[in-house]
């Protein structure tokens, strides 16, 4: 005799684990779509606001100082020591092949094409992205953002645009400084540790480094800066609750900004290599 057909209830309970998984997956997916949609909306609004009046020039300058100039130390130190480590590692790796003379070339190329832009963006993402979220998040929970709206002033125009413009403008500048300091760090190791001359080091660099290497590295940072500022502002504006919510949003900004920098770096590198 054939076994009895399982009831609908029995089938439901047998598959409950799967249903819960699908439910959780659906909720996560929906939250991600909501986030990306909201971020895209803010970016679109901010881009339109960039090209219409009023434009807060003074606020842009203030943000360039706050977000850019005050980040020179942290990005500079990072690049300086990265250049020194690169020189040491390159000399150690290439010594057996008599490749010490290539130290300048390796250090400069690695820094200018990849490490300078990415490390600068990661440091700025940590310092500036989190700062933007904390500041705008605090303004959101204390109703200052609502106060702007109530005064018929667009938070996008007043808060988002100056920060995005400031970070986008300052990122290539910070990266150029970081590249230079990294190369100088490599020089210090080359001269003091590896007993190379200034001339050998810089000749090696000039033989290899081209304008396109520098420009592709700097061009990437425009995108990185945009990502950092947009994510920072959006997370700040989305804060609901109190101080704990601001803290969580700040952490989310650092994580999302870092991931988006690393992912977009791959695609931008592919793009610039193809051009």
């Amino acid at each position, binding site marked *: 005799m054939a076994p009895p057909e399982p009831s609908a209830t029995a089938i439901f309970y047998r598959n409950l684990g799967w249903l819960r998984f699908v439910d959780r997956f659906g909720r996560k997916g929906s939250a991600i779509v909501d986030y990306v949609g909201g971020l895209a909306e803010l970016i679109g609004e901010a881009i339109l606001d960039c090209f219409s009046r*009023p434009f807060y020039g003074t606020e842009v300058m203030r943000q360039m100082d706050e977000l850019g100039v005050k980040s020179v130390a942290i990005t500079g130190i990072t690049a300086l020591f990265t250049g020194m480590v690169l020189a040491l590692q390159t000399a150690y790796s290439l010594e057996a092949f008599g490749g010490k003379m290539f130290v300048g070339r390796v250090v400069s190329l690695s820094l200018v094409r990849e490490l300078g832009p990415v490390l600068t963006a990661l440091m700025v993402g940590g310092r500036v992205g989190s700062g933007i979220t904390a500041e705008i998040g*605090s*303004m959101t929970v*204390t*109703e*200052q953002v*609502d*106060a702007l*709206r*109530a*005064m*018929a*002033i*667009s938070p996008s125009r007043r808060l988002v645009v100056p920060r995005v413009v400031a970070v986008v403008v300052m990122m290539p500048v910070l990266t150029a400084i970081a590249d230079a300091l990294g190369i100088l760090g490599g020089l210090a190791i080359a001269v003091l540790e590896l007993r190379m001359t200034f001339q050998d080091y810089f000749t090696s660099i000039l033989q290899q480094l081209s304008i396109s290497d520098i420009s592709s590295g700097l061009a990437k940072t425009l995108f990185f800066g945009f990502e950092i500022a947009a994510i920072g502002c959006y997370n700040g504006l989305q804060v609901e609750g109190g101080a704990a919510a601001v803290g969580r949003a700040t952490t989310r900004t650092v994580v999302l900004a870092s991931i988006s920098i690393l992912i977009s770096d791959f695609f931008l590198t592919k793009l610039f290599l193809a051009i």
Partner: protein
Amino acid sequence: MSINLSALKDPTPATAPVDEPIVEFKELWKSYSGRAVLAGVNLKIRRGEVLCVLGPSGTGKSVTLRHINGLTRPDSGDVRVFGKSIVGHSEEELSPVRRRLAMLFQGGALFDSMNVEDNIAFPVREHTEKTPTEVAALVAEKLNMVGLPGIQRKMPSELSGGMRKRVALARSIALEPEIILYDEPTTGLDPVSSEKIAQLIVSVNERLQTTSVVVTHDIVAARTVADRVVFLHQGLFQFIGTFDEAASSSHPVLMEYFRAMGFPCGTGVFETAPKGV
């Protein structure tokens, strides 16, 4: 005490029909997480009056207020301000209406990064072409009005709670709005500061000929400022009328609310001070 809620479902305004409403709610609904905070409310606010929205915490008083300047959007129904609907419009489209309104937020919402002068001057610099001298004079005048002359250079962090609210009020009236929305203006203040704020609301309303909507659970302040009060409970305006009528009302919920706030209610025997005193 048991409350007969069925008796409250169909509140009858205690005053005559309102003419010339400056703000009007029509069948306004708003829900959060499936709970109806506003369940089809209707209200007309007259030009020049001070209307107090009373009710226990968490009943949607602030939500009601935020519908007037479009900071919160209704699920359904209509909000008409200056005779025009503000529902379904973009932020940009709401700008002309918002310029004629001002809102005093619960915590003041002063901009931390600016001093008192810049805070008050902020909407003026944004929306007018006044010269720096004119702006400075206007800031001084508004600070005088709220009784805080000479504090232009102070930062918000250096001010007490009461002073912050008064500076926020100065900022609210900087553009001489036609309607001022007050969100819990006396919450967190000592009785003396609360009384000062209440007096200021009355004097600002009289001097600037504005319409004021005051959300509060402070009955003492409501008694000082209100021309009319509405009582919000369970998503509906359970009572609309003057403060004296509220005080002598036999609505069970209103009686319980007044009693909980330390006022005898339903007897009509307790004395109400004249407005502004």
